């Protein structure tokens, strides 16, 4: 059987859902960040798939930019994470509720 667009989109949806579940359910902020990466990559995958399907270079360009931005964003996110850890001595986000109203 051939791999069609739907397969890619299905995979993308699965990855996206796993990512969202990870973000919503895990306590460890590192895992949350990793789950965010999964969401990113699900989106990238669907972009790449559509680019190939529509034979348009635009999607590829989007993907490259998105990965670049994601890398930068992960760097910033990890830096904040390290700073938070140093300050609060914890990586569990249910303990990081200082901002409640």
């Amino acid at each position, binding site marked *: 059987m051939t791999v069609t667009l739907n397969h890619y989109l299905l995979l993308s949806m699965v990855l996206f859902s796993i990512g*969202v579940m990870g973000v919503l359910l895990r306590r460890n902020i590192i895992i949350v960040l990793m789950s965010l990466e999964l969401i990113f990559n699900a989106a990238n995958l669907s972009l790449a798939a559509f680019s190939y399907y529509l034979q348009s270079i635009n999607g590829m360009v989007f993907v490259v930019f998105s990965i670049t931005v994601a890398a930068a964003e992960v760097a910033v996110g990890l830096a904040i994470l390290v700073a938070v850890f140093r300050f609060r001595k914890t990586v569990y986000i249910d303990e990081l509720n200082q901002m409640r*109203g």
Partner: protein
Amino acid sequence: MFDIIWLIPLFPLTGAVANALAGARIGRKAIGWIGCSAVALAFLVATVLFFRLTGLPPDQRSATVTMFGWIASGGFQIDAVFLADPLSILMALVVSGVGFLIHVYSVGYMHDDRGFGRYFSFLNLFVFFMLVLVLSGDFLVMFFGWEGVGLCSYLLIGFWYEKKSASDAGKKAFIVNRVGDFGFIIGILLLFWSVAGQGVQSLRFDAVFDAARHLPPHTLTLVTALLFAGAIGKSAQFPLHVWLPDAMEGPTPVSALIHAATMVTAGVYMVARNSVLFTLAPVTGEVVAGLGIFTALFAATIGLVQNDIKKVLAYSTVSQLGYMFAAVGVGAFSAGIFHLMTHAFFKGLLFLGAGSVIHAMSGEQDMQRMGGLYRPLKATAITFIIGAVAIAGIPPLSGFWSKDEILYEVFRRGHPVLWAAGLLTAAMTAFYIFRQVFLIFSGPSRADEHTRSHIHESPRVMTVPLIVLAASAAIAGVFGFPFFKGGSPLHHFLSPVFAGGVHHAGAVAEEAAAGHGATAFILMGVSVVAAVTGILLAAFLYAEPFRRRAPSGLHPEVLAKRFTRLHNLLLNKYYVDEIYGKLIVDPLTRAARTCLSFDLSVIDGLVNGTGWLTRLTAWFSHQFDIYIVDGLVNSLATLVRYSSGVWRGLQTGYLQNYALIFVVGVLLMIAGVLVVI
């Protein structure tokens, strides 16, 4: 010729400033040298001027020396001007001469005092002001000196200011003098106001006296009466005599210099200086003479019973000043000045002698605790007795001539009543002064053992001035000796000053020529008899060998018992102080208390009421602030707080809550889009 006259007051002023500034550093010896030499130099200059003056013909013996302009306002001009004429130079000689001897004496008397430098500074300052007073050629300059000597008197009476009685006495002297000086300055102002009407915009003696001849008599009477009020205060005449006995709280040389020899005679000098005015106002002259003799008699009676060695001399001074006023009052100005001069010698001597006795008795002043001091204090005793004989009026010592001349002039000018009172006073004078001599020097010693063992003659620095003064007191009568050809030399010397008044030019010569006829000799005899009677009475009462032979009943205690009320009256000085206390001091105190209670109730009430009102307003303001202003702010905050409650619940702070809402929202949006499409 008289340009150097300003040196006379300058030397004592320099001495005063030098001792005031450097007195703490230069040691007692240097202080004494500065103080004495300053006065000695003044005396020297005065002597030089005296001889220059006598070198001139009598009618030219008056020169004014203008130093600098003092006050100039429009046409009105007051200069610091000195006057050199027989009267002023004679006074300068007496002041600086007696002043010098008393300064020398003070070196010994004050030797152990802490305030040695301060003392000499004040004493020199006093001599400065006194010389300004007698040498001034202008009423205001005279007033400057007049007030200055008052100040120095205050400073020196209260010299031992740690003693309450001394500082009180100083205040009393100053305040009582204020009463007289008020009259004096009003008199000067009235005089200026009157002569200004004549176009004279000055207070110089010569200008004023010239203009005064054209003034109406009642104005002159008022002016002279006011001037005499100043003299009453300064020269301690009744009723302002109360300060002088209290002034004895000061050091004894001060009593001798200020309160016997010089300052208190300033009133007599002032009346004599204004002889022109006083002869133009005969009514005031009568008052002056009458009050003078009254004071003489009044003070002499008090002096009869006093037991304090200095108080006797103080009342004696008041009494003798009364004599001088009697003389100048009846117009015998040179007789008054003559007595002023001899009195300066013998009363200065008596005070210094008393100081020497007090010194020997370790500060004891009560004559009842003395006695028998003749042998241990020979020099003091002999000089004191010479002074006593002089004041008692026994010829040929000076007091006889001056006192007799006054009595003669009073009698001759038609005041037999005053003469009789003066004669009685003379007898009393002889009595109280010899009572004092006998109590101090004769009989057994009544001192306690401790004091007796310390009795010693004073050092030479104190006895030498006593001897010089005793010699002066003995022979000074020569100057007023009436038997010289052409009358007494002093009279002659002073005549240019006093000739300007009623006495037209010939009168003086006429007077002198009339001289002392048979009446004069009879009066002399009577006054000698009075003086001897006084002395004998004192001897029978107080001197040992006479006392035993005295008739029964002639004994101090018996007499005191027999005349208890009179004795008490005299012992309490006629209750004048008490009367002043009741009439003036008490009402003043009561008025002050009334003012105090007014202050406490009304003024303080107002202030406190205002404070209370402010507090009340502040309380209301506070309540308004708390309940209204704060209430508004708080209720606004509360409103915000409750209204925000729902939305605050959303802000859980849990990241995953937000993410969940986010996801649910996205899903709802997608669902919405799907439904719509």
